[in-house]
């Protein structure tokens, strides 16, 4: 915070020197932020207001809470619970996979570790849809994996169109979002701090539990947010890997909008948004450092 203020003050000073007039300098700096303000109002704030408006009104523009309470219908409720369960499981799997990996990467501190980090990021450079469709091809009953299994005389794997396939897709797509924030926090832990814990008598397990884990919590929190939220709202992964058999809340909302039923779709979106806000609020309680908010 402090450094930010200082650097701000510096920039202003520099600008004012260039223009020979302090006020002009500040004004021109403010003017530069205008495109961003237009962007935020036009593409974030107005759409949000529109969603809130649609969510709370009927077709003939009268106030109603029916769109919100639509969540309590058995189909929608099932879809919400399913989405919560699937995204929770994926988040836990991502965490269990990512933490040890981030730990190994941060400890090695070699040239190879940055190479491995790049490999982890690599899939993110490819289109999300493409990656998911690739998994569909791999997992299909007569897909690549089953062909290979058949070739070796092994029983085929039938996980396409099951919750397992969706979790696989979520983990595959969102794992980098868990690895990177944890890795970023871990490499920032000063080696002296770990030496200090060892120096004070802690063995490596105690050092991990009492020092490294608590200090890496902000990264874990932001990793959880970055995996859980997109997983909870996804409809693409469940569409492609779940066939039409598994319906998540994202799919329900998508269908409502596609059928032209904007009011119910918006109402359900608001409910989902509330769930996300609640989970973010819970997480941000543990995130004193603000690492998560920095990434969001």
């Amino acid at each position, binding site marked *: 915070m402090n450094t930010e203020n200082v650097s701000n003050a510096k920039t202003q000073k520099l600008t004012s020197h260039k223009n020979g007039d302090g006020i002009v300098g500040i004004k021109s700096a403010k003017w530069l932020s205008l495109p961003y303000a237009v962007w935020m109002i036009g593409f974030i704030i107005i759409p949000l207001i529109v969603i809130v408006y649609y969510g709370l009104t009927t077709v003939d523009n009268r106030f109603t809470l029916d769109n919100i309470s639509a969540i309590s219908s058995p189909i929608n409720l099932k879809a919400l619970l399913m989405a919560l369960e699937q995204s929770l499981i994926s988040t836990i799997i991502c965490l269990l996979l990512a933490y040890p990996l981030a730990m190994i990467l941060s400890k090695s501190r070699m040239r190879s570790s940055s190479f491995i980090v790049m490999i982890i990021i690599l899939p993110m450079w490819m289109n999300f849809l493409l990656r998911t469709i690739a998994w569909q091809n791999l997992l299909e009953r007569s897909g690549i994996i089953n062909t290979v299994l058949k070739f070796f005389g092994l029983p085929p794997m039938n996980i396409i169109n099951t919750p397992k396939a969706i979790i696989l897709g979520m983990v595959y797509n969102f794992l980098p979002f868990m690895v990177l924030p944890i890795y970023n926090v871990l490499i920032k832990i*000063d080696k*002296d*701090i770990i*030496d*200090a*814990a*060892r*120096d*004070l*008598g*802690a*063995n490596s397990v*105690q050092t991990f539990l*009492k*020092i490294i884990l*608590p*200090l890496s919590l902000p990264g874990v929190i932001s990793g959880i947010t970055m995996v859980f939220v997109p997983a909870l709202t996804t409809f693409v992964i469940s569409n492609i890997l779940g066939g039409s058999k598994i319906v998540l809340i994202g799919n329900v909302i998508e269908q409502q909008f596609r059928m032209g039923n904007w009011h119910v779709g918006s109402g359900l979106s608001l409910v989902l948004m509330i769930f996300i806000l609640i989970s973010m609020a819970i997480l941000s309680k543990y995130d004193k450092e603000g690492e998560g908010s920095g990434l969001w």
Partner: protein
Amino acid sequence: MTDNKLINLVNITKSYGDNVVLDDLNLYIRENEFVTLLGPSGCGKTTTLRIIGGFETPDKGQVIFEGKDITKTAPNERQVNTVFQKYALFNHLTVAENIAFGLKIKKKSKEYIKDKIKYALKLVNLDGFENRMPDSLSGGQQQRIAIARAIVNEPKVLLLDEPLGALDLKLRQDMQYELIRLKNELGITFVYVTHDQEEALTMSDTIVVMNQGYIQQIGTPEDIYNEPKNAFVADFIGDSNIISSIMVEDKLVNILGANFPCVDTGFGHNKPVDVVIRPEDVNLVKPEEGIIKGVVTSLLFKGVHYEMEVNANGYDWLVHSTSLFPVGTEVGIQVDPFNIQIMNKPESEDEEAVELEI
């Protein structure tokens, strides 16, 4: 200070890749001694400290602690605690939790820990800071907490790695007194690493001057300052005039073409030597009274004294004096015989860095 050797480093060699940091280092540290490892950055002083602490393992050689070989012992099993350069406090824990860290791991009773925290905070003059978070404290306060956190474990040796490096001058001086007081109250051995010669001279019982992985000289602060063994030590410890000269005969040295009486003997006849004269030992007198004559070329007021440069016989003499000679004044230079320190010239580059046996 007793004569018991508490720590003995035997033939320690350590290198990182091609870079030899320590080359066959031998050093012992006595019980209840304040030893300072002093040298420029990259001289191997911190590596030596980390080897004692157990954070580095030497490639060759042994670390003997109270007669036992601890070369391969993990840091958490050594009776040694470290105060790190950047404090290395646990920022997610309160001050009290930081101090209690080592004691909790040793499973001490709650009462004992509480008493110890109170005692340690009192010792470092920070009573009542138990519930503060480390990042809400100033640098000096954080450093004291780091010291408190180390000493509650009652180590036999406290290792300090440039602990005052990040503090401003005034605070550094205050902390120097604090450290001396602490050492006297606790009665434990301090091994202190610094590149600040003034700090070393102020606090130490023994100074170990290091350069390029070799020990250059071991001695009391007075020894090191007054009788530097070679040009490196003389140059590193305070300002000095180091002049290439000829030892004419016993008790007579030819400096810049003029013969100065001195007290050293046994260097032979007409032998090239290095002469060290501290700036405060150069006496400025009337031109006709000096052994050589010169002209004052610069003058600075330094508070306690004036710092002058006198060009005489082609050498710019650095002079500290309480009396003022304006720039351009012709002066005579005279040095008391016992203030002229004669050193053998190194015959090659290698010899300059050669290790001196204790």
